[in-house]
């Protein structure tokens, strides 16, 4: 810091230390933060230069919440359904509290007769995760808002729901909360808060969970909360590849009647959510189309260049998009307006590389059978670089044009 007396006298530097809060003010800030959840902000920007627009972070969050509804409903139903199917195949139920609570409410978690029962059972697994993640994310945001004396922003529910939807049903709630808190601190607050983040907090939280508690996110046993040895049909498509695909039904994989994480199983629900987001113009159709194109090209390329020996090479793209987290990633993660590319041609390139990269990870990395989360986290880091190229190219083009005149 250079000391220049003239400058210091004409305008004292804005320092955070001038804003000391007393304890009653701090308490009021907390209560106002929660009040703003219910009533919206009463603060209005005082300065002359700001954009008048109907879209705010709060509205974008609301659009996202609506888009997540199909995934939530399909995921809750499917989770209970998978337990019923596993029970009818003779697997013993877990003695965890959702199952006990189901029996306590007079519903048989094992009986395949009630679809409402399946829905309630799945919801009992999902809600603690979602609420726990919300509390973790909100607490972190509250602490940072207090320390930085900023207004508490909306949006934690979107983060919490998106994260809970990519978790397996049997994830311990405290692990999910720890990962969510880590994701919000390291993925969002460290960069200065909502809208300034480099990586998606949810993807970072997922990576934290994967590295810290790998047993929560890997193996075949995590997708359906039952006990005992899994029969073959319960396995995700594993290293044995396409022979297992023959046991699966594409339609049920598309509708989301296969084992998997809550929100990821139903490609249909994810497509509905993506359609709503596109309709509301919250996300860019260029990224979505690029993502499709990238996956199509990569799958075709792998099928053409199949050296034999790895059956994952031959999985066609219509299977790729219904398996694992592809559809969910397409709808809610790769399209994230903050962490993706911001220039229009950059969005095409970003989507294209992301789509191809997901397939690359799936086919080539035996430890990441569903490469969506890790590939998209990696792509987040490239988005600024892609933007840089296109902005620099535009500058060059305009400079050449002006020189020619």
């Amino acid at each position, binding site marked *: *810091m250079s000391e220049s007396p003239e400058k210091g006298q004409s305008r004292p530097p804005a320092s955070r230390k001038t804003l000391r809060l007393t304890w009653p003010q701090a308490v009021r800030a907390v209560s106002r933060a929660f009040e703003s959840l219910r009533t919206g902000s009463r603060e209005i920007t005082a300065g002359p230069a700001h954009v008048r627009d109907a879209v705010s972070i709060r509205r974008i969050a609301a659009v996202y919440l609506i888009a997540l509804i199909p995934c939530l409903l399909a995921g809750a139903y499917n989770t209970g359904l998978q337990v019923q199917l596993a029970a009818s195949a003779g697997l013993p139920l877990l003695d965890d509290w959702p199952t006990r609570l189901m029996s306590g409410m007079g519903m048989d978690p094992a009986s395949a007769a009630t679809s409402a029962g399946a829905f309630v059972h799945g919801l009992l697994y999902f809600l603690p995760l979602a609420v726990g993640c919300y509390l973790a994310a909100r607490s972190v945001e509250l602490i940072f808002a207090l320390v930085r004396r900023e207004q508490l922003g909306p949006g934690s529910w979107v983060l919490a729901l998106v994260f809970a939807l990519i978790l397996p049903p049997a994830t311990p709630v405290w*692990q999910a909360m720890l990962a969510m808190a880590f994701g919000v601190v*390291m993925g969002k607050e*460290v960069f200065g808060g909502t809208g300034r983040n480099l990586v998606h907090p949810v993807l970072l939280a997922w990576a*934290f969970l994967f*590295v*810290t*508690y*790998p047993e929560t996110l890997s193996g075949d046993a995590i997708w359906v909360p039952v006990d005992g040895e899994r029969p073959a049909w319960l396995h995700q498509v594993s290293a044995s590849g396409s022979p297992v695909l023959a046991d699966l039904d594409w339609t049920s994989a598309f509708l989301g009647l296969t084992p998997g994480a809550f929100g990821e199983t139903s490609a249909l629900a994810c497509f509905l959510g993506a359609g709503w987001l596109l309709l509301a113009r919250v996300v860019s159709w260029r990224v979505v189309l690029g993502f499709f194109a990238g996956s199509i090209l990569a799958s075709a390329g792998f099928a053409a260049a199949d050296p034999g020996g790895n059956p994952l090479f031959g999985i066609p793209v219509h299977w790729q998009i219904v398996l694992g987290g592809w559809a969910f990633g397409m709808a809610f993660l790769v399209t994230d307006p903050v962490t993706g590319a911001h220039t229009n041609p950059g969005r095409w390139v970003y989507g294209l590389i992301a789509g191809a990269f997901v397939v690359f990870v799936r086919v080539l990395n035996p430890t990441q059978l569903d490469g969506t989360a890790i590939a998209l986290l990696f792509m987040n880091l490239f988005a600024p670089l892609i933007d840089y190229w296109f902005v620099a190219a535009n500058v060059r083009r305009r400079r050449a044009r002006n020189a020619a005149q």
Partner: protein
Amino acid sequence: MAASSRSTFLDPLLEKNPVMGQILGICPALAITTLVENAVAMAAATTAVLALSNLSISLIRKLIPDSVRIIIYLVIVASLVIVADQILRAFFPDLSAQLSVYVGLIITNCIILGRAEAFASQNGPVLSTLDGLGNGLGYGLVLVVVASIREVLGSGTFLGHPVLATTATDGWFETLGLMTAPAGAFFVVMVLIWILRAWKTDQVEEG
């Protein structure tokens, strides 16, 4: 530049910490900080080498030709590192085996060459030794703090003694795998730098 001996010694601890302020010597700070024991040994070895190399370079600073000074620094540092490595091997063979190549790599620690070039080549032997000790201790402080966090959270132990009952021993604490991974060290160092700069705002670079 006549600096007081007090600030020469104390500044590198927090005000001008070589790891947290200047982001030097990150490689060993990441590699060997999974256990506090290793970090203490590494800190001691580096501090000794740094103080002695600063002292020797300061003593002959007026004899060193400018054009070959880096090579001469390296010869001095390399000799000291070999001595430190041999002492560790002779008296602490287990520790030496765990630190393996990183003791030899002290020579490439940019803090040592940096202090030789920036301080010892321009100051007297007493101040230079103090500067070497201060920087070594500042570096060791970060190493030990990072290692304490990583060992407690990653293995549930401190200096090898169990402090948190891990699930492996029927306890409640599930060790954080991230903390034993090298990436965990990045996060710990990053958070420490974040806290330090939030506390001492004059260390924040102007962006």
